[in-house]
């Protein structure tokens, strides 16, 4: 057990220190893109509130904090293990040759990989928001339970997407784009569910993707009550994890890696 923990910690550190293949400036440009989207959304909230629209009692502060925190917590709420990319490149096969489990290796690489964006994107965004006078205190302490559940569920969802990639014979970029667009809308990481029209928000809030980003953010900003959200998160974890493990086991024989 101790040996495995040591290997896990070493892999996390290795992954955290790993340089991006395309270099730091490439990474920085991606962070700037995220910051630009954040700025555009905050401008939209400002314009909506300036126009005096009916927001069902929600405040501009809540919307702005939601948007800021969705960027700050993005590396934890949108879990992307290297499984899909490595499957395409052929690197995934080497994980099977090591004396530790596939899940723990993927988890270690993902957690390590999240450290850089947390340092270079999340912290500056949070600091700038505080400087602008935004109150980033969570509205509910249940958020601290919701976030780990989101991270756990995120791993399961990512593995299911990797299985989908295997089933579709490695159409990596198609799945990548599809996933990016779908999770942005359906996970609530871009627009709060409370701002969606009709019954769409409450329905999405309890969906498997909606409980990813939407759940902790809604609790953080006080846009939703934990009574419905937390049980939904627990239920989806209980459903998605066995499903992901089963799908991955079934897909193992179907893996085709290009290599190179």
């Amino acid at each position, binding site marked *: 057990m101790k040996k495995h923990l040591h290997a896990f910690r070493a892999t996390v550190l290795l992954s955290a220190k790993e340089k991006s293949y395309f270099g730091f400036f490439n990474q920085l*440009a991606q962070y700037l893109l995220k910051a630009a989207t954040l700025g*555009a959304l905050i401008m939209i909230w400002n314009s909506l509130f300036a126009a005096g*629209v009916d927001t069902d009692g929600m405040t501009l502060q809540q919307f702005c904090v939601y948007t800021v925190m969705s960027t700050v917590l993005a590396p934890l709420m949108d879990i992307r293990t290297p499984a899909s990319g490595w499957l395409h490149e052929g690197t995934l096969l080497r994980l099977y040759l090591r004396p530790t489990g596939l899940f723990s290796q993927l988890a270690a690489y993902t957690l390590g990989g999240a450290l850089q964006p947390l340092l270079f994107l999340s912290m500056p965004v949070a600091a700038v928001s505080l400087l602008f006078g935004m109150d980033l205190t969570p509205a509910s302490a249940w958020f601290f339970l919701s976030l780990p559940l989101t991270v756990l569920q995120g791993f399961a969802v990512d593995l299911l997407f990797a299985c989908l990639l295997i089933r579709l014979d490695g159409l990596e970029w198609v799945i990548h784009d599809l996933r*990016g*667009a*779908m999770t942005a809308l359906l996970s609530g990481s871009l627009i709060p569910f409370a701002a*969606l*029209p009709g019954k769409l928000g409450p329905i999405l809030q309890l969906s498997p993707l909606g409980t990813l980003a939407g759940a902790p953010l809604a609790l953080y900003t006080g846009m939703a009550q934990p009574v419905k959200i937390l049980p939904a998160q627990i239920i989806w974890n209980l459903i998605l994890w066995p499903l992901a493990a089963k799908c991955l086991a079934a897909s193992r024989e179907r893996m085709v890696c290009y290599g190179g």
Partner: protein
Amino acid sequence: MAGNVKKTFRLLRLYAKMDLEWILQDTRAVIIILLSETVSNLCSMAGILLLAVRFGGIGGFNADQMLFMMGFFELGGGLCSMLFGNFNVMHISRRVGRGQMDHMLLQPVPLLSQILSEGFMPFSGSGQLLLGIVLTVFSLCRLQLTLTVTWFLLLCYYLIVHTALLLGQSFIYGSLAFSRPVAAEEISTMILDVNSELGRFPLFSLPRPLAGILCTVLPSGLLAWFPSMVLLGQMDLTVSLTLPFVVSTLFVLTAVTVFRKGLKYYEKNSCNRFKDMGFRR
């Protein structure tokens, strides 16, 4: 000159045929790609659109006008992707950064003809364009605009501007890959992503200097928001014709100049990632 034009059209026909043959050979993959492209494009614009529906509009646009703007964005993006989407022509930094320019320079066809024809995929690359057409027609039906010949000419004009701006930016920034092949390999993708993210936002709420930047230096505002303002009759025609023309022309001219300089650098230094069978094939 006339010979080169003929050659380009012959190549376009050839690439269209190859695209059709691919569809006939691997229909399953094409259907999956088209479907997922449609879903991902719908999802990308749905967020802003749903906000417009929920709050009765954003800034100066009501929900139907926002739908038109999104439709126009998909129309422009779809046209660009159908004409230049294949073989990384739009993402030119990948071709340059992977040392694949040699493969182009070896061909007995002018480089410009190759750039204008290689990306053409009229069948498998038409998903976004079809989505754009459906959304634009649907929004126009709801808006009940009076459509004239001038209006259609304006629509075509702004679609050309959209394409010129995207390609221009991709080639300007992509030329960095001549000197920095690894670091800048994905720079065209990144600049296209910036445009894709910001181009869908209406800029009404931005302070004037920022809106000015987004309509000139980083012209994502000219991709859909500005044209929609004009086509929906919310802007004076003089400015609306001049600004996109000047900006897109400048971007194209700069792209040509910068890319030529890059090619000269490449002729002297080549690329350390060159492989005869193609880096990453």
